[in-house]
């Protein structure tokens, strides 16, 4: 297994607040990495740094041995780093399949000519089939024509994951994919993640540790902007430092 993404002494300061503090971090190919930690421990900030939402204060990030520290987010997506957002972020005013048009013609980038992008109908057979194939994967093909704002929160989450997958990521960052979902929806998402983990490298931020413990190969625990523990999920959870920051001192004693 090789390292596909390496973060070297990565830091982010917001004024006096140090959100991410000199983190050294690497992601292996074809591995599912889980990142857990209390609120405000810097998990999402770390995602934002990797995906290019904002630049780091210091440190550098390399992806497949190319430095990507200062390139804009859209170029990172082209290189293969795709993320989802903590609050579901889909285009509510459009129909479900229209949501997938931009992402599914992106992965076919080299085949879609400019003429097609500007002048052929978005209802073109090829584009439509690509959208539909992605929708089928996340189980939304019967809703293709529906307005996205009419979907349930869980379906929107599935749609967002579908959009991310249709970009054909080399590294997929999922920011709390289970947040705000009902138990039924959670198991749907977990099933989907189990299905896609064979083909994609995933990094998952999650609060519901018990739900993802069977999914992840490696668990990293963050607290106050740095990694306090990383490794095999069971070992990480048994680590006394982790237990202290997660469940407090009293329970341990």
């Amino acid at each position, binding site marked *: 297994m090789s390292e596909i993404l390496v973060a070297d002494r990565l830091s982010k300061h917001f004024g006096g607040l140090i959100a991410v503090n000199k983190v050294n971090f690497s992601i292996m190919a074809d591995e599912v990495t889980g990142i857990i930690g209390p609120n405000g421990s810097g998990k999402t900030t770390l995602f934002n740094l990797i995906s290019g939402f904002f630049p780091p204060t210091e440190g550098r990030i390399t992806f497949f041995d190319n430095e990507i520290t200062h390139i804009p987010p859209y170029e990172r997506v*082209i290189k293969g780093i795709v993320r989802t957002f903590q609050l579901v972020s889909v285009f509510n005013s459009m129909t479900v399949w229209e949501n997938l048009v931009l992402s599914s013609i992106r992965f076919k980038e080299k085949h879609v000519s400019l003429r097609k992008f500007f002048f052929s*109908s*978005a209802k073109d057979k090829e584009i439509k089939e690509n959208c539909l194939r992605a929708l089928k*994967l996340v189980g939304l093909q019967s809703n293709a024509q529906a307005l996205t704002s009419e979907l349930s929160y869980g379906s929107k989450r599935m749609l967002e994951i579908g959009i991310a997958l249709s*970009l054909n990521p080399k590294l997929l960052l999922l920011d709390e994919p289970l947040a705000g979902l009902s138990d039924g929806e959670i198991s749907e998402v977990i099933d989907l993640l189990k299905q896609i983990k064979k083909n994609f490298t995933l990094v998952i931020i999650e609060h519901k540790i018990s739900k993802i413990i069977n999914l992840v190969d490696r668990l990293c625990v963050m607290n106050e902007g740095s990694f306090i523990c990383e490794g095999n999920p069971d070992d990480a959870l048994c680590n006394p430092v982790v237990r202290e920051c997660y469940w407090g001192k009293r329970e341990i004693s």
Partner: protein
Amino acid sequence: MGQDKLFPAQNAELPGAFENITLKENHAVEILAIAVFFLLVTPLLSVHRVTDFMIFCIFAMSFDMLYGYMGRLSFGQMLYLGTGAYGCGLFIKYINGNPLLAIFAGVAFAGLLAMLLGLIIVRTTGACFALINLAFNHIGFFLVLSPLRSITRGEDGFGVSASQIGSLNFGSRPIMYGAVFLSLLLVFYFLRRLTSAPYGIMIRSIKEDETRVRFLGYNTFLYKWLTFALAGTIAGLAGALTALNYNYVNPNAMDVHSNVGVVFACLIGGAGNLYGAILGGVIYMLISNFLAIYIYRWEMFLGFSLLIIVFRFRMGVWGYIQRFWVHKLIPRFTKKEAI
């Protein structure tokens, strides 16, 4: 790659329902409908008036690309209309009387200006975008009014008399009508193709959430700039046609206050739809042409109706027609078929 494993069967069966519901746009029918509409209203009004209306509709469509589709409200679209008008007029006055070349010159001037200013303007959003456009419009207005007076004749403006090419005389009303009519249909067709292509989905996505589009791997700046330049170019076409239609150009063509008209037209017609822009353009022109006969300060009426639209009828006239069509008429037809 993961993709191949994920979507293995190229010919996997796809639900047929999707194929049936999605009606492909039939552009020929749409163009015919618009052509018939304008031909029908011509005898009711007058050739000159309808020519004027159609020019305004072209302008409204250019504004709608920016505001309705991309969600960027501009208070300075008149700058490009004025640039088109001055470009066309000055070309005829100083270089060549050929009206077709002059139209091209006007469009090119406006397009180039929009490309240049767009580099700065599209970096902003919201109120800042609206006001920076307004500021540039003011600059343009005072440039033609005063510093460039020796060329533009300042407040007085100058006459534009295009020369005749063969039997094509742009001074004659029916020929001008025909030229504007063709331009309107062409612009409509061009924009309709663009907005129903993936590019249309792109600019609508930018309207809703630009950050999200960046995280889909697109350089949104490029597409915003392109849309801005396109809107400016088409406004320039409207300007060039205005110059030829009135046979003179004065700073009114770049008047900052006229921006209200096009904003109003888009809102009343229904922003984010080319039909809405055309319908709104016609409604606005009807109000400004005919209400002014009966009411001295007709602008007050515009103000009140704008308030009512903004608070009560956000979708505009076309939005309500569309909703009626989708929710009332289509279910009725399909029910009959089912029986």
